[in-house]
C-alpha cells in the first residue's frame, strides 16, 4: 500500500534536498471510493463507524447499512471520496475500530455497484410523453401515477441515476429518494 501513497510534504522536501525531480502524481487525484465494512450488528457499531468519519474530518457521500446472511453481522456500504493518502487513512481508522470485522475498498477490485432511486415528478398533458420517453431510455418503471404526478423507480449505477435526475430537472421534480450505493465484488 505504501508505494501507492501520494507524497507527503516531508517527502517532497526530502526529494528536493536530494535533488530528485518531483513528478506530478496522479495518485493525488480525488477519486470516488466504495468501501464495504462488515460490523457487529448493533446500532453502536454503526454509529462508531459514522462518528469516526466526522471526528476525523473524512467525507461521506452515502452510507447504506443492512443485515447480512449472518444475523450478527451488518454490512455497511460507504461511498466516500479522497486521494489515496486520505483513503489509506480511512481504511486504517476503520480497521482499528473494535466492532469492525472486515474492511474492503472495492474500488481497487472489480465490482458491481447499484443504487435505487424513487423520483416523483409533476406532469402535464404536454410533458407526459417526453417524461415517459426519458424513463424508458433509462429503463425506469412507473410505480405510481395520479392526475398530477408520476413516480418512477430506477435501478443502476449511481452515475446513471445522476443522469436520470439531470434529464428530469427541466420538468417539475417533486421529490427524490435515493438509497445510496450498495456494492459487491465480482468473482473471478
Amino acid at each position, binding site marked *: 500500500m*505504501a508505494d501507492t*501513497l501520494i*507524497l*507527503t*510534504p*516531508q*517527502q*517532497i*522536501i*526530502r526529494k*528536493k*534536498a*536530494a535533488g530528485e525531480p518531483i513528478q506530478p502524481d496522479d495518485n493525488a487525484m480525488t477519486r470516488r471510493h466504495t468501501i464495504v465494512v462488515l*460490523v*457487529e450488528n448493533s446500532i*453502536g457499531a454503526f*454509529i*462508531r463507524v459514522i*462518528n*469516526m468519519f466526522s*471526528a476525523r474530518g473524512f467525507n461521506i457521500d452515502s452510507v447504506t447499512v443492512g443485515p447480512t446472511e449472518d444475523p450478527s453481522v451488518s454490512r455497511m456500504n460507504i461511498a466516500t471520496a479522497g486521494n489515496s*493518502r486520505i483513503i*489509506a*487513512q480511512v481504511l*486504517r*481508522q476503520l*480497521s*482499528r*475500530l*473494535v*466492532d*469492525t*470485522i472486515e474492511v474492503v475498498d472495492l474500488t481497487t477490485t472489480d465490482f458491481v455497484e447499484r443504487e435505487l432511486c424513487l423520483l416523483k415528478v409533476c406532469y402535464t398533458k404536454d410533458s407526459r410523453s417526453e417524461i415517459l420517453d426519458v424513463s424508458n431510455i433509462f429503463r425506469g418503471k412507473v410505480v405510481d401515477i395520479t392526475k398530477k404526478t408520476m413516480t418512477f423507480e430506477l435501478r443502476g449505477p449511481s452515475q446513471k441515476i445522476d443522469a436520470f435526475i439531470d434529464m428530469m430537472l427541466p420538468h417539475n421534480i417533486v421529490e427524490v429518494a435515493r438509497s445510496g450505493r450498495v456494492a459487491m465484488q465480482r468473482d473471478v
Partner: protein
Amino acid sequence: MKYDVHTKVQPVVTGDALPNVRPELTTEGQHMSGAEILLRSLEAEGVKIIFGHPGGAVIHVYDEMHRIKPQFEHILVRHEQGGTHAAEGYAKATGKVGTVLVTSGPGATNTVTGIADAYMDSVPIVVFTGQVPTGLIGNDAFQECDAIGISRSITKHSYLVRDVSDLARTVKEAYHIARTGRPGPVLVDLPKDVLLAKGPFQYPETVNMRGYAVPAEGRIEKLQRAAQMIAESERPLFYVGGGAVNSDSSELLTDIARYTGIPVTTTLHGLGAFPEDDPLALRMLGMHGTWWANQAIQHCDLIIAVGARFDDRVTGKLDSWAPHAKVIHIEIDQSCISKNVFADCAILGNVRNVLEQLRPMVKPKDTTEWLKQIEAWRQECPLKYEHDGKLRAQGIIEKLRDKTKGDAVVITDVGQHQMWTAQYFRFLHSRTHITSGGLGTMGFGMPAAMGAAFGMREIGSSRPVVCISGDGGFVMNAQEMSVAAAHKLPLKLAVINNRFLGMVRQWQELFHKERYSHTDLSDTNPDFVKLAEANHCVGLCARTPEEAQQIIDEAWKVTDRPALMEFQVAKEEMVFPMVPAGAATGEMITDRMTPNSFV
C-alpha cells in the same frame, strides 16, 4: 471458583489474583445482583484498587460493596475528574489497568476530561458509569446523560450493558481492550435496573472478539528491510515515544542502542525509556526539546521511530522536518503509520516483540563521526539558565533530582514547569515520568500523583512520588489533597508559583506583543501553605534557593501525609529553547535574545 451451580464451570483464574471464595455470601443456586456481579468480576480481573464517587444510579454497587467487602480497595475521590486522573497515574506507574466508578449524569460528564486525556496518551483505564434504568433512557430523567454518545470519540471502545447476563463478559472484554494493543480508555455504562437484576455469575476465561486483533510480531520481510536500512545508514537516530514505555521495552531498547551505537532522542512520553545519563541520550526533541536533539533530527539520514506518533509538538512544520531522513516506523496502531510522516518501512507490531526480533538482525555501527557532530551541537547550545542567586524553577527541579538521585516517580501538570521537568530532571527509568502530553490537561498532576502513589504502595516500591505543578494547574484539582492525606500518602507536592499562567504568558510575551490578557493569577491564587494545611497536609514555602533546599529537606522528613512545597519564583522566566508553533524545527529560539523573525 464458581458462583453459579447451574452451569458446571471450572474455576476461573485471571491475572495474578485468585478470587476469594466466600460460600457464606452466595449459597448454591442463588443468583446474585448485577451490582455484585460487577464487584465479583473486578475481583476476578485482579483489580486491586478503584477510584470512585457514589450517587443514585450506582448506589446499589456501593451497597453491595459495603455488604460483601470485596478484595479491592475503593478510594473515595472528591471529584470524578480527580478519579480518572488518579486511575491514569496508577495505570502509568504500574502498567496495570486503572479503574473508575462513578454515577450517571454529572458523574459521567465529570470523567470526560480524564477519559479524553487517557485516549490521547494511550492510558489503559476502564470507567464504569451509572445510568438511569433502561426504561427511562431517553426520557430526560434525573441525572441522565448519554454517556456513550458523549464519550464515543474519546474512548477506545464503550459498552452499554442492557442485560445482566452480559455484565461479566463485558467487564472481561473492557479490561482486555483497555490493556492490549495500543492501550486506551474503555467506558462501561450500567443502567440501574441491570445492577439490580439477578443473574448467574461466571467470569469468562477468554474473550472472543472477531473484530479485535492485537498486533504482536512484525513481518519478517519488513524487519529485514529495516535491518538493511540501519546497516546502510550513516547518521541513524532512534526516536522513542510512549509505546516503548507501554510495552516495557526500555531495557531491550537500551541494549540495542548501546550495541549498535545509535543515539536516542525521546518524546515527552518516551522520557525514561532510555537513561538520560547515557552518552547516547540526546534527551527530548520537539518544541521544547534540546537544540542538539532537534539538530540531529534535521541532519540524520535515518529515523527509527519506536512507538511514537509524530505529534505536531515534535515535528513542527512537517514539510521541513527531517529533510534527509528515511523513516522506519515501529508501531502497534496502524492508523499512526504514515499519518503525519511517510514511513519508508512500517513495521506493525508490539514494540517489544519487534525489538526482540530486530535485536539479532542488527550489527554494531561506526557512528563516531555522527556522535562527534552531535556533541558539537551540544556544546554549541547547552540547556542553560541564569545562576544569579534568585530562585528559579530549573534550579528547583535540579534540587529535586539531586534529592532523589533521579530515582523517583515524577508527575507533572501542564505548562512551563512540565517542560522544565522534562529538560532538567534527567529520567533514568521507565515509568518514572508521568504527564499529560496529548491533551495537555491542567489539573492532571495532583490526582495523577495520588494514583501513582497508590500504585507504588501496592507494588511495594519505595520510590518517592513527586508531583511538580504550577500554581495555575494545581488549583484545578487541589481537592484531592485531602484524599491523599486521609490515606497517609507521603506525596511530595512541588508548586512552582510564578503567580501567572506561565506558558500562556510566555506566548503572550513572545508572539502577542506582551499583551498579558487574563494570565495574571496574583489576585486569585490561594495561600498555598494554608491550602495544604486546610487539607490536612504539611505546607511549606520558599523564596530563595537556600530556603528551597531547606523545605525540600523538610518535606522529605514527612512520611505520614503529603507535603506541599510552594516555590515562589519570578514570573518572567521562559522555557528555552523553543520551536514556535507551526515553525520549522530548524528555526529554534534559543534564548530571549534570539531575533523573533516569526512574530
